[in-house]
């Protein structure tokens, strides 16, 4: 790393590190949280982290294809959120709970 | 760092003017509604109640801020902050006039020119819903919660027709930057009809303008779509539990949103700061004429004073108006002031319609509101966009 990095710009790897950190936190939230909506939001966080690396690589390669991929990711996330939240509403309607561990009637 | 200094000065001017506009907009609203309903409105504080906003601000600042014991405190305080923040940020993306060349400095009458201005304003003003929704939820009160829920549903529903109505003129103007958008509306058809988007070929955007205005009423929670704060069913909706400054914050956010919507409508559909008729026919003398007429009226009334102190105040205002009329005629200043005047006149006209509608129309019922959004607004905006796209592609 050249020493006065605040003059030469941001090292490219920082963007990927930020993306990796956010993705890991998303995975952690997905594993630790028990509220189905929070779990869903952790998935959105992971999608965001992936989008960041798409855009960062797009910068590195000098093409805007990465921007288009992340745009598609957003569109699919919107569709996913609509259907997912409808499913959550239905689950809550049937079971009166949002705890992921309680929704396990297929288990035993 | 001339750029930073210049930006700071511009920000300061915008903030000062905006704050006074917001305060006086409330005075104008009370006056207009009063006159529509054959009352006189505020007139105790200052001449014609002109100092009423000052009195209101002093009252709101010095009042005790009550925190109800059952609220969710962090979110309760966060909500008005979010509402004001996202109502004020779009202001720095809006251009108020053309270029300025003064003392060798060249700049634009805009805090910052962004090439994706429209999208950013749309996105940022869409974030304002969190303030309302959060206020409703954090108040821990069933009326507030209903208000917050209604507000989020309403804003999601009306954002779609609004975005579609914005997309149609964008197809014709072919840019996302507000400044270029106004440039694309310069000129006149047949020498007199301005090339504003609502008159411009191939498809005059009058329908988009109407749809945008209706959606704008809903986005700013104004009558007839003020369901989130419907006082005869929800007490005061989402801000039932708020008092003093946090209440004033919601109030300010509502007015700031109104100003933003009016500015965007002016820039997109009404040609921004382009005059109504060409300068050859003397459109640049209109502001002077208006102020001259106001001065004459003041002097006439001063000759027959209704109250003793009118003998002093009216001539003072008359001289003031005469000075302003003169300032509009000085050539270097004229270059700056004439676009500002036209922009302000158009925005003021739309704001007047906002107030006029509030004084006139009753409130929708909630199911009517939703049905209107999804069965009329959305298809109409879609068809309008389709026809515009087709005609733009053909021509």
């Amino acid at each position: 790393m050249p020493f006065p990095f605040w003059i030469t710009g941001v090292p490219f790897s920082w963007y990927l590190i930020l993306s990796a950190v956010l993705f890991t936190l998303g995975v952690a939230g997905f594993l630790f949280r028990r509220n189905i909506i929070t779990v869903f939001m952790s998935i959105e966080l992971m999608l965001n982290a992936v989008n960041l690396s798409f855009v960062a690589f797009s910068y590195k390669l000098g093409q805007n294809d990465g921007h288009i991929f992340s745009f598609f990711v957003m569109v699919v996330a919107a569709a996913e959120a609509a259907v997912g939240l409808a499913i959550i509403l239905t689950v809550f309607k049937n079971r009166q709970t949002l705890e992921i561990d309680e929704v396990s009637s297929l288990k035993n | 760092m001339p750029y930073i200094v210049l930006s700071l000065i511009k920000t300061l001017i915008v903030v000062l003017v905006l704050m006074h506009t917001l305060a006086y907009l409330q005075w104008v609203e009370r006056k207009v509604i009063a006159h529509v309903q054959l009352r006189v409105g505020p007139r105790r504080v200052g001449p014609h109640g002109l100092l009423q906003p000052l009195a209101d601000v002093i009252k709101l600042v010095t009042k005790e801020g009550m925190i109800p014991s059952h609220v969710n405190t962090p979110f309760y305080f966060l909500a008005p902050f979010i509402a004001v923040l996202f109502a004020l940020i779009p202001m720095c993306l809006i251009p108020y006039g053309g270029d300025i060349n003064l003392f060798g400095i060249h700049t634009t009458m805009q805090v910052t020119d962004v090439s994706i201005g429209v999208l950013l304003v749309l996105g940022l003003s869409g974030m304002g819903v969190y303030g309302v929704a959060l206020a409703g939820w954090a108040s821990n009160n069933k009326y507030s919660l209903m208000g917050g829920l209604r507000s989020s549903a309403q804003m999601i529903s009306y954002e779609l027709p609004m975005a579609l109505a914005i997309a149609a003129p964008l197809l014709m103007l072919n840019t996302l930057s507000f400044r270029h958008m106004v440039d694309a509306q310069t000129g006149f058809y047949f020498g007199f009809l301005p090339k504003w988007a609502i008159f411009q070929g191939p498809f005059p955007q009058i329908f988009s303008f109407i749809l945008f205005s209706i959606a704008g009423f809903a986005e700013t929670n104004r009558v007839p779509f003020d369901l989130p704060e419907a006082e005869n069913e929800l007490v005061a909706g989402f801000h039932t539990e708020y008092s003093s400054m946090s209440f004033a914050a919601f109030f300010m956010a509502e007015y700031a949103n109104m100003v933003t919507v009016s500015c965007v409508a002016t820039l997109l559909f009404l040609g921004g700061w382009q005059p109504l008729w060409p300068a050859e026919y003397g459109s640049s003398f209109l502001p002077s004429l208006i102020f001259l007429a106001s001065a004459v009226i003041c002097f006439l009334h001063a000759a027959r004073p209704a109250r003793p102190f009118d003998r002093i105040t009216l001539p003072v205002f008359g001289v003031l108006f005469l000075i302003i009329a003169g300032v509009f005629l000085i050539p270097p200043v004229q270059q700056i002031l004439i676009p500002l005047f036209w922009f302000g006149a158009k925005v003021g006209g739309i704001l007047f319609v906002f107030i006029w509608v509030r004084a006139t129309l009753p409130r929708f019922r909630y199911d009517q509101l939703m049905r209107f959004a999804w069965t009329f607004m959305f298809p109409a905006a879609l068809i309008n966009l389709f026809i515009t796209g087709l005609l733009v592609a053909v021509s």
Partner: protein
Amino acid sequence: MDAVLFLVFAAIAVVCAVNLVIQTHPIASALSLIGVMGSLAFVYLQLGGQFIAAAQLVVYAGAIMVLFVFVIMLLNEGKERKVKMRLWVRWAGLPLLALFIALMAFIVQRVLPAQQSVKFGAFTSGDAQSIGTKLFTAYLLPFEVTSVLILIAIVGAIVLARKEID
């Protein structure tokens, strides 16, 4: 300047993401996620992605998250129950997570040459015009397929959520 701005927004994003994971009330998590998305929009701007930054604000922060907040408020479930964790999970989980992140950062740093630096304004094909041109020429089929996908999602959501909650 670039690095300072990046560090500020990256810090906001990471703090908000951590907050998302540790908060027990879904509405606090939702607000943190909005914070992450907003600061990521600024990072996109720095990378030259004007259009994608605006789309991030309009679609993600302005539409999807409103839907989340709306559902959270509609169900109004309150805080999450405390779950019992095993002892070693409780004590070793956080250090292991930090170790994992540090390891990943180290690997990324080593694999990528650090000389390459990102400057604001060096990437110009992220504006709406270039994105639109590419979207409607090279990526026309995926674009149309996503529109069908959204249609299916709308129908699915309506079918699933049609009945009133009592």
